[in-house]
């Protein structure tokens, strides 16, 4: 953790934001080309959410919880060497609050993550000609009655817990939502010694059939899926297709789960309820939301991806519409870690090139060609996956009047309905103003997907406007006013770095 309070301004050739698969690859490529790289990451250890792990001091074999761990260890080794030679500075435990175009390049303000900083709070400003933004994604959520009960978690949160703690956050779990990630999360629970009562998949999986060719392009994904399926079969875990968790029950915590069959529009089929008793952990995940606030802050061009996510538009070099701003990983479309690494390398190379560090040669050309093929194949696979695992259009059929939509501001479903029906709050900003949906601590990160659906934002352009409104946050990470005031007071004379 960097604690030099006196250093308030930093300059470098390339800033990489995020030390997950894309960011690590970008930092390694850019520094390898000779650029001076500043790698900024929220966590203390590199790896991002995908390779989140305990320190080796606490877990001698963190690789057992992971896929592609060899890729991580190789990237981590390169990073360590580059840190050793001074080519990379790793600013861990820091988050980026703002990003903007300056007269001469791109500017960022950065702050220590309060939870990791031991009271250190000063802002750091960074300026560079090139920024590679690799912010990753978090679980997409749909509300369901009882989802605020303790014991109900994001599916990705369940897996993150297991990867760092080596233990499951509950004894007996139900995983529900849509997408192959549910299988991965269920496998983690079993591996950590927990029991999985059921995996509920809202899709019927026939959506994969017309995309068999795309799936065949990425055999590793098929293999990974087969591993999960066989592990679940071995533990006799029911994999319930076209089924959703439609209510979670309990007094002080989750105790029992109701699941229902969905029709082909994703609406609940009445009379098909089944109950799972003695469940103390529910993991919910409906795909992923790329962290797009910095893209929106920079003013880069965005679009709605096939899964409904707001993503940044990039060219073949991963360059956005803003000069010097490169994007890699989930922010250009949720496609997983292998695509992210390939994109990270492409972006890191291009960013270093832009900053004046130019590597040519046959080896580089061949490597770049491999990355482009990897990227194309994994993007095709991701399109097939998103098509086969849509958000169920009829999800509102399991909502009850009192079901909480916005967890922070405790806004119930009926209040949102009143607002959209009588006050014509036809977009998330209107909902915010009339109901406070999305105004709490998380700034609409958790309820944003639901708010976009509920505000009846239809049509791609309306949807993009709605998603941009949700992602428009003046600060990319929540900051306490006292910290800002303190930082202002501290921004007295700047010592040269």
């Amino acid at each position, binding site marked *: 953790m960097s604690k030099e309070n006196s250093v308030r301004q930093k300059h470098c050739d390339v800033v990489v934001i995020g030390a997950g698969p894309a960011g690590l690859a970008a930092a390694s490529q850019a520094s390898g080309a000779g650029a001076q790289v500043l790698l900024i990451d*929220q966590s*203390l250890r590199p790896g991002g*959410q995908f390779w*989140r792990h*305990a*320190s080796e*001091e*606490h*877990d001698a074999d963190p690789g057992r919880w992971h896929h592609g761990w060899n890729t991580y260890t190789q990237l981590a080794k390169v990073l360590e060497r580059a840190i050793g030679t001074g080519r990379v500075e790793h600013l861990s435990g820091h988050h980026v609050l703002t990003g903007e175009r300056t007269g001469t390049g791109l500017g960022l303000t950065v702050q220590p*993550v*309060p*939870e*990791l900083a031991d*009271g250190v709070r000063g802002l750091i400003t960074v300026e560079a000609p090139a920024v590679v933004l690799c912010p990753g994604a*978090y*679980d997409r959520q749909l509300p369901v009655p009882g989802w*605020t*009960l*303790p*014991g*109900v*978690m*994001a599916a*990705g*949160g*369940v897996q*993150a*817990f297991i990867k*760092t*703690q*080596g*233990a499951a*956050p509950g004894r007996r779990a139900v995983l529900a939502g849509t997408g192959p990630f549910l299988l991965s999360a269920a496998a983690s629970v079993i591996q950590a010694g927990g029991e999985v009562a059921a995996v509920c998949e809202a899709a019927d999986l026939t959506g994969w059939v017309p995309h068999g060719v795309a799936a065949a392009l990425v055999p590793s994904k098929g293999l990974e899926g087969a591993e999960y399926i066989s592990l679940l079969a071995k533990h006799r875990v029911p994999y319930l297709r076209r089924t959703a968790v439609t209510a979670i029950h309990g007094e*002080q*915590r989750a105790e029992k789960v109701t699941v229902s069959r969905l029709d082909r529009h994703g609406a609940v089929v009445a009379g098909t309820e089944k109950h799972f008793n003695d469940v*103390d952990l529910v993991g919910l995940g409906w795909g992923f939301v790329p962290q797009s606030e910095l893209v929106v802050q920079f003013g880069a061009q965005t679009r709605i991806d096939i899964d409904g996510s707001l993503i940044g538009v990039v060219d073949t070099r991963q360059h956005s519409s803003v000069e010097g701003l490169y994007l890699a990983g989930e922010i250009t479309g949720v496609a997983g870690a292998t695509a992210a690494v390939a994109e990270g390398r492409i972006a890191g190379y291009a960013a270093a090139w832009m900053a004046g560090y130019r590597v040519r040669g046959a080896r580089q050309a061949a490597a770049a060609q491999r990355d482009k093929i990897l990227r194309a194949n994994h993007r095709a696979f991701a399109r097939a996956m998103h098509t086969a695992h849509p958000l169920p259009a009829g999800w509102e059929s399991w909502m009850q009047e009192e079901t909480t939509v916005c*967890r*922070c501001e*405790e806004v119930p479903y009926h209040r949102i309905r009143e607002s959209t029906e009588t006050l014509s709050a036809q977009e998330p900003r209107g909902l915010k103003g009339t109901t406070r949906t999305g105004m*709490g*601590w*998380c700034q609409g*990160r*958790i309820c944003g997907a639901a708010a976009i659906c509920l505000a009846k934002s239809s049509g791609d352009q309306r949807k993009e406007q709605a998603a941009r409104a949700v992602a428009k946050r003046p600060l990319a990470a*929540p900051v*306490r006013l006292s910290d800002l005031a303190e930082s202002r007071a501290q921004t007295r004379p700047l010592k040269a770095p």
Partner: protein
Amino acid sequence: MSETITLSVDGEEITIEPKRTVAAALMLAAERPAWRRTRFNNEPRGLFCGIGVCFDCLVTVNGEASLRACLIPAEDGMVIETSERGTR
């Protein structure tokens, strides 16, 4: 580094493995699925997103309020205060 560390949770001492986050310590060692009540409905809340996005798991650590329990590595001698004493 010792095999275990000790934290104070609402005045009660708990002994945990050193790799725990504060959230994991509360859930696994203190058997506390919830450690906060909401403003309006007084509902119990605990860990939800697990990765610092949702702010449901807020807790007071060493006198500093509103910190995300999922992000904080537990340290020996840490004083944790919740607004949810003894809810099981």
